[in-house]
């Protein structure tokens, strides 16, 4: 048995030195069983391999160790993983994604967060690249109830996806946006959460995905909290959503009334969305007050309190900047004002500048993507192959839809 292990070590050394990553990957995938049979010798194997030069080999050994049903010494293993991730060669591990990241969620989500952040830094080619580890980081943050570590990654707009030798799956993409949406919902950044859920729902799809279904339910609730109504989905949503997911979500046509919300509380409680539904209720009160601002200039404050059973709600909303009003305690009246913003000051100009700059950057990005596609040999071949103009239009349309998604930011 030992000789088979020795052979494994030699092969790993050889292939790593020659830089033949794909063959190394295959070797590792086949040697899983071999390593599992020789658990006691794994430490010696680890000692024989260098972390920087033979990263993939070390990764395989660590993975097998984690796959054991009960792990005798978690702390040592954990520190080994930490050491590995901080010193491994980024080039190598980009090729293999069967890493032990899922094992870290078992015992200690919080500690896994730091490790995963390092892993993402290693695997990314540039900061706007989405890897499969992003989804796991978001999941760990949710389990640990600590959202700050994931925020720097969530705030960046993703422009690219890390290929990971073909192992990157739609599940990682959907999970990233679903979990990211949940994190933003927890932090009450409802606009960004809505955007993330929308990304998950509008992914081109040919089959129903449970992740999309759950994202759709949360999309409805967050849309209600933010806008008081369910925002219609953009046109590039795939037809799957309309035909299957909306029916299964079983929701919301009468959602704008409080009674309908209370009635559907039980339905949503099954999916553990109760917290969001309660927030919907309180936001409905706020929306009612906001609607009132458009109708009346003065309202007696006691009537306000009576009708909307929201004591001191008005002052809360004024503080949050949701309505513009002043309370006159002497006369017991609340006076509503128009938005005092006249859009004629330098601050507004500065804001417009920022938005224009973003648009210009986006345009440049799109131009470079367009160029990449047009010189892609496969694309050129396809265009030449069939004289059929319709295929060209189809592919170009697909690209335009893709570009539309980014433009609709």
């Amino acid at each position, binding site marked *: 048995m030992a000789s088979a292990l020795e052979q494994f070590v030699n092969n790993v050394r050889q292939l790593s030195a020659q830089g033949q990553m794909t063959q190394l990957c295959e070797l590792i995938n086949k040697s899983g069983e071999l390593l599992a049979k020789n658990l006691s010798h794994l430490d010696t194997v680890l000692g024989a391999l260098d972390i920087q030069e033979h990263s993939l080999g070390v990764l395989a050994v660590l993975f097998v160790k984690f796959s054991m049903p009960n792990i005798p010494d978690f702390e040592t293993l954990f520190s080994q993983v930490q050491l590995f991730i901080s010193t491994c060669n980024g080039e190598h591990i980009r090729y293999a994604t069967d890493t032990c990241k899922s094992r870290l969620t078992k015992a200690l989500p919080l500690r896994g967060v730091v490790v995963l952040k390092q892993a993402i830094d290693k695997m990314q080619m540039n900061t706007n690249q989405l890897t499969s580890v992003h989804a796991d980081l978001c999941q760990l943050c949710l389990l640990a*109830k*600590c959202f700050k*570590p994931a925020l720097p990654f969530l705030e960046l707009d993703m422009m690219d996806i890390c290929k990971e030798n073909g192992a990157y799956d739609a599940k990682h993409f959907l999970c990233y946006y679903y979990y990211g949406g949940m994190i933003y919902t*927890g932090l009450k950044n409802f606009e960004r959460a809505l955007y993330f859920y929308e990304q998950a729902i509008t992914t081109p799809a040919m089959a129903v995905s449970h992740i999309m279904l759950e994202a759709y339910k949360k999309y409805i609730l967050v849309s209600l909290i933010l806008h008081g109504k369910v925002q219609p989905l953009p046109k590039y949503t795939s037809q799957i959503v309309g035909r299957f997911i909306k029916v299964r979500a079983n929701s919301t046509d009468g959602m704008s009334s409080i009674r309908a919300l209370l009635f559907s509380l039980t339905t949503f409680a099954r999916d553990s969305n109760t917290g969001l539904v309660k927030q919907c209720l309180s936001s409905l009160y706020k929306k009612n007050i906001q609607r009132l601002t458009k109708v009346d200039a003065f309202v007696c404050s006691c009537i306000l309190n009576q009708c909307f059973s929201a004591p001191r709600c*008005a002052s809360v909303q004024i503080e949050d900047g949701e309505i513009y009003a002043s309370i006159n*305690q002497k006369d017991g009246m609340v*006076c509503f004002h128009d938005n005092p913003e006249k859009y004629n000051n*330098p601050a507004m100009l500065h804001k417009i500048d920022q938005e224009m700059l973003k648009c210009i950057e986006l*345009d440049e990005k799109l131009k470079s993507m367009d160029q990449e596609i047009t010189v892609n040999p496969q694309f050129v071949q396809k265009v030449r192959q069939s004289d059929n103009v319709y295929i060209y239009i189809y592919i170009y349309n697909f690209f335009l839809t893709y570009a539309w998604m980014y433009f609709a930011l």
Partner: protein
Amino acid sequence: MQQLGINMPAAVIMEENFDKLLEQCESQELEAPGGIATPQVYAQLLALYLLHNDMNNGRYLWKRIPQAIKSANPELTSIWAVGQRIWQRDFPGIYTTIAAYQWSENILPVMEALRESTRQRAYSLVAQAYTSIAADDFAAFVGYSVEEAVKGVVSQGWQADPGTRMVMPKKPDPPPVSLVPNEQQLARLTDYVAFLEN
């Protein structure tokens, strides 16, 4: 008697210190062995979140602190009591809860800064939202006695009517905006036109 305006340099230095302290506490929590940090780290982190009015992170911190540490550390529970008052926007409650507990050395400066910042919030909220407010309510908002509160704001230009016991706040001046130099503006406009023409 506190002035409404802040003494700028001291406050800025304090803010930077608290920001650095916050970052340190957060990284300490993430790297703690076993995923559980010491009660001091938790207490400081929670107090700093309250100071920054970051109730979302504060709430989740409270959820992830283990129950054992919560029951063994009454200070932690008192910090959370202050947090609950802030969440419910119960201004008078905030002041009473802060005053009710004997804070340890680490937490005391944070709590005092919290009280001051709550007071500032209350002043600006009243100035923005109310055209007239009863003196008793106003005093409750800022945590002073009625005489002190009225005296403080009258010196800032607000009106007070002892007969009806009403205080008439003055709307605050909008903050000054930084102006962009003209050459830069022109360069930007040129960029926009070039972009739009293409």
